[in-house]
């Protein structure tokens, strides 16, 4: 187990579909704040090309909404979310993986 994997709060954001496969991970000692999560998700968005970004505009918006929704209930536990929920195979999407611990706590 790597030092990063031993951290109690871990997860990643992924931009997938149409040949895109990019992600941003978090791995930390304390639960990720919603504000940190928004920044990391924005960083992923900024790494995409303008076309890749445009194709996932609604998916990123839904992912940000989920972070806010998580913060309202005090954070979320391990899960995986696909946005948009009605994604089709290979089409542009954004996934959220909370792998361990809590994420998107208020702050």
């Amino acid at each position, binding site marked *: 187990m790597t030092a990063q994997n031993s951290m109690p709060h871990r997860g990643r954001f992924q931009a*997938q579909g149409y040949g895109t496969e990019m992600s941003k991970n978090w791995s930390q000692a304390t639960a990720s704040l919603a504000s940190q999560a928004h920044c990391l998700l924005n960083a992923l968005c900024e790494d995409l090309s303008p076309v890749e970004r445009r194709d996932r505009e609604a998916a990123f918006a839904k992912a940000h909404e989920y972070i806010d929704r998580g913060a309202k209930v005090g954070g979320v536990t391990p899960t995986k979310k696909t946005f948009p929920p009605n994604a089709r195979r290979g089409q542009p999407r954004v996934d959220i993986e909370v792998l361990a611990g809590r994420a998107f706590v208020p702050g």
Partner: protein
Amino acid sequence: MIHHLFADFLDDSNVYRQVVEYWRDLWTRLEPLKRGQLEWIEPWLSTGAPTILDGNPIFSAYSPKLRKGIRVVQYPPASADDVEFDYWLDTYGGDITDPQSIQELVISCALSEESARLSRLVIEPWLSGPVSLQYTSTPIVRNAVIEVMGVGEAA
């Protein structure tokens, strides 16, 4: 004409609970012996919090023995005439080269009698053993989709 089930599941928590039970019931009818042997655990992933009832996922299961998972994302129906259903393979916890990652079968659908039937046909071979990454192209799955949807592959 599609036979939708629990179409308003996002609007009523009682209906939502019925949908969760529907998927559990569908699951428990599939290959009980193999599910036990392969140590499938259900549920696997939540929606993130008990108060988040968004159907994303509505059902999930995981076999630590196979390092395989199943995740079903359900959304409200948008069509009265088309089966809204698709599936693909993904990984959880790392990319495909990461030995710690879990291979997952993802089903995205609006629940109907038709999409439930497709789900059963797609899940059954996946839960039964070490199916390869070419799973979605195998004849058993392709023929199942042809049979139910009347097309060569899920749209």
